[in-house]
């Protein structure tokens, strides 16, 4: 059953990619460019394919739930793919409100990237430790992910806004930062490529090293080690010998992964620049030609308005209820909790700035981008780097 369910996830992933192509076609289709209100044939097929993908992923979710006996949101792989699914769901809902294929062209790649990223983590069905054996946990996690996904749509809208509005004829801070954001997405893609490649070739390198308690320990790398652990000794033959050694308090394996991601990101980015002969954002710009900036701005704002209450409910209120039951207190200043609070405060600031200070358009778009970075930071960095009570055993 678990294997069967994985096929549905894979199908969903492919369908999302196909959906992207159709939404791209919808934008490029010149004949209908001026009829903004009714989506053309391409867009209609695009949304049907996307919905099919969503249903396929939902099937994956349900099957896995049945197989494991608990809602599959209990490890990093499960949670991240669920987040991706929620993002697609949020997009579908907003598509029917605003009928904008361009939103699909930007949201679906982000969702697909998130799902691919999540799939790089161990995909085993994990048994639940006692603290996680509560239906409140599942309610809390799913609601939070849905809230974050709705908020993330504002990131896609913000990107569209910026790609369209930032003047690409001259270099500026805006063009630079926009490239940085896109580079972040490309690095994630790089991470997926690198991990998949070495997983396919079954690469393994084992090390003995001395951990930060001064004890001997072992570490298994699944991608070649550019940086090795503290006082490492490679125990496999014919493996890439690390170039540098890290101090004991740094997790060498994670640092190594980051280095690979950034390096492959740079390679991909430089390659793209060489092919396109302009900034990535400048290359994307023509795609946004026909969209009305006001509309994009509004979509971004709406998704924050809709997502904020959902996130509050899931990420703070349900979280507190569960924490009261499982950890004896509703709030414990655990890093994951604090970052949920930070996310919440950030979007509260966003709403205030928008309502009272009139931060519309470009400013608001940048805020949406920053908000998404905070969400991803909570998902990725807090789980993997700042471990706390909530951290799933990711590696």
């Amino acid at each position: 059953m678990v294997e069967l369910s994985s096929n549905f996830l894979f199908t969903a992933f492919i369908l999302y990619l196909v959906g992207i192509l159709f939404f791209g076609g919808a934008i490029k289709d010149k004949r209908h460019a001026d009829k903004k209100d009714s989506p053309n044939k391409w867009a209609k097929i695009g949304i049907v394919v996307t919905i099919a993908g969503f249903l396929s992923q939902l099937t994956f979710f349900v099957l896995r739930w049945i197989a494991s006996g608990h809602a599959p949101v209990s490890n990093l792989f499960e949670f991240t793919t669920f987040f991706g699914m929620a993002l697609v769901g949020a997009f579908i809902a907003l598509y029917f409100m605003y009928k904008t294929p361009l939103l699909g062209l930007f949201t679906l790649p982000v969702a697909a990237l998130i799902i691919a990223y999540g799939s790089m983590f161990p995909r085993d069905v994990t048994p639940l430790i006692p603290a996680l054996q509560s239906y409140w946990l599942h309610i809390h996690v799913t609601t939070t992910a849905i809230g974050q996904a709705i908020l993330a749509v504002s990131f896609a809208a913000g990107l569209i806004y910026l790609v369209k509005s930032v003047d690409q004829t001259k270099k500026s801070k805006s063009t630079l930062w926009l490239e940085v954001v896109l580079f972040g997405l490309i690095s994630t893609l790089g991470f997926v490529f690198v991990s998949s490649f070495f997983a396919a070739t079954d690469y393994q390198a084992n090390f003995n090293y001395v951990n930060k308690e001064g004890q001997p320990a072992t570490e298994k790398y699944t991608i070649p080690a550019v940086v090795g652990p503290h006082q490492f000794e490679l125990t496999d033959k014919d493996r890439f010998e690390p170039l540098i050694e890290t101090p004991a308090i740094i997790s060498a394996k994670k640092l190594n992964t980051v280095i690979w991601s950034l390096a492959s990101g740079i390679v991909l980015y430089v390659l793209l620049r060489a092919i396109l002969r302009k900034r990535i954002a400048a290359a994307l710009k023509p795609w946004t030609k026909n969209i009305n900036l006001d509309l994009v701005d509004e979509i971004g704002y709406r998704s924050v308005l809709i997502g904020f209450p959902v996130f509050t409910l899931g990420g703070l209120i349900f979280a507190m209820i569960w924490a009261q039951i499982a950890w004896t207190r509703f709030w414990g200043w655990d890093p994951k909790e604090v970052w949920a609070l930070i996310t919440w405060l950030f979007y509260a600031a966003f709403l205030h700035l928008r309502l009272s200070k009139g931060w519309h358009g470009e400013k608001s778009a940048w805020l949406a981008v920053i908000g998404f970075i905070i969400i991803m930071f909570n998902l990725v960095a807090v789980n993997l780097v700042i471990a706390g009570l909530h951290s799933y055993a990711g590696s």
Partner: protein
Amino acid sequence: MNEIKCECGHVNPHGTILCESCGRVLEEKEKEKQLVDMRYEGSARRSQTYNKTIIDKIWNFFSSVKVGVWLIIILLVASSLGTIFPQEMYIPPLMPAGEYYQEQYGWLGKLYYDLGFHNLYSSWWYLLLIAALGISLIIASLDRVVPLYRSLTNQRVSRHESFLKRQRMFSVSNADLSGETVDKIKNLLTQKRYKIREENGNILAEKNRFSRWGPYVNHLGLVIFLLGGMLRFVPGMYVDEILWLREGETKAIPGTEGQYYLKNNAFIFEVYDKEKDDEVFQNAIDKVGTVVKNYQTDATLYKKQGDTVPGEKPELEKVRDQSIQVNKPLKIDGFALYQVDYKLDEMNKMAFKLENKKTGDQFGDVAVDLYDPEMNYDLGNGYKVEVMSYFPDFEFNEDGEPATKSRIPNNPAFIFKMFTPDKPEGEISFVAIRQTIEPMGDNDYKMIFNGVETKNVTALTVRKDLTLWLIGLGGLIFMIGVVQGAYWNHRRLWIRRVDSQIWTAAHTNKNWHGLKRELDTIFADSGIKAPEDQLSDDKKE
């Protein structure tokens, strides 16, 4: 107080910008603007009107959204600092916190500790920030909600031309309103749930006014939540105790003033079993080794009967048996007992025999309860053992003398005095795990170790939190307010005859696009232009 009388005759409070009744612009500065600022309906807000006394200044400071946003941002950044390294409560209590941070994280860790970031969330400045946020919430809300309420309940249907013209959505049509068209438009508006008021042939259609109160409701919720947080510091509202119970042991539940007792019948610790548990977990279990499945205390709850004087053994009546698991606390009378910790196989009793070193003859059984040792053991026939000293958690202290680190029998040691018929004045022997010292020279007798009995120990957190209802109420009100403000928008449409023209104007507090679409359908074939966005023309290409 000098009130302002509008040309229409309405008397407005001092500081009003737009006449509450007809909407004429009252403030000179505002008259030059293309659009009126509709944010608080141009009502008189205290903070915009007075700025003389110190109280005015404080009021104005805290009522500013700019200040509010700064407070939120500062709080956000401050909170993130506390996650760089773990907070003190999450570090292992093996050594003084200062040393721990230095050892684990080097000079950065030391700096972190010295700045007090290891206890950031209970630092005075962090609490001060939260307090400032709370004050700001209250003042900013009061400053706006009362005048806003006045304006919204006082508004008249016919608004002055100058008001309509300066709405963001506005149109002028050279057309006449026939009764038929009016009916059709009104009909459509009612279908869209607008409430319609008419006056001299002018129309005001309005819906979802209640959503304007959303922010104030949610701020009220937040304030209640914060009050709930403060309530914890009131004595008696909050109990946080820990109860360690060995299997078989019965103890009073701390915090209940001896009213309730709990007995630990058994502590159960289970891990997932590759064979017995679900097959799908096999891979995961193979990878990580062991995964804990259950922590459970099978407990019996007792209630004390009647009054007892201290020292007297209380009479207990059984209330119920219950298994306490993680996520399944035992609840009684506002108290909840949570499974939080445990120790497996803790030494409970130690047994010894007295042995004659030469003959190997053994005498008696000395079973010492490590938690409550008896001091004398009479083995009969003149053989007797006395416990002179007991060190549950033995170590040699700085002066090289035997001492105990704690009262938990992690490493028990004893000084025994052994009385036998041949040594009636007794011999002294120091016995610790795997070591015996005979301080007074060689003895004829020794205490030999004869086994140990272990028990599991459970730790339960005893919690009473009488602030929860207030905190929950605050959360609920916050959610209601935030949904109210976010999922509905306040929309208004004015239609007015001006000579032979029809003027329309519309306003919403957010989601202009939705309003535009709605109005476009309503005016579709009416011969009247729907209000058009005066702002976005230049942005469209």
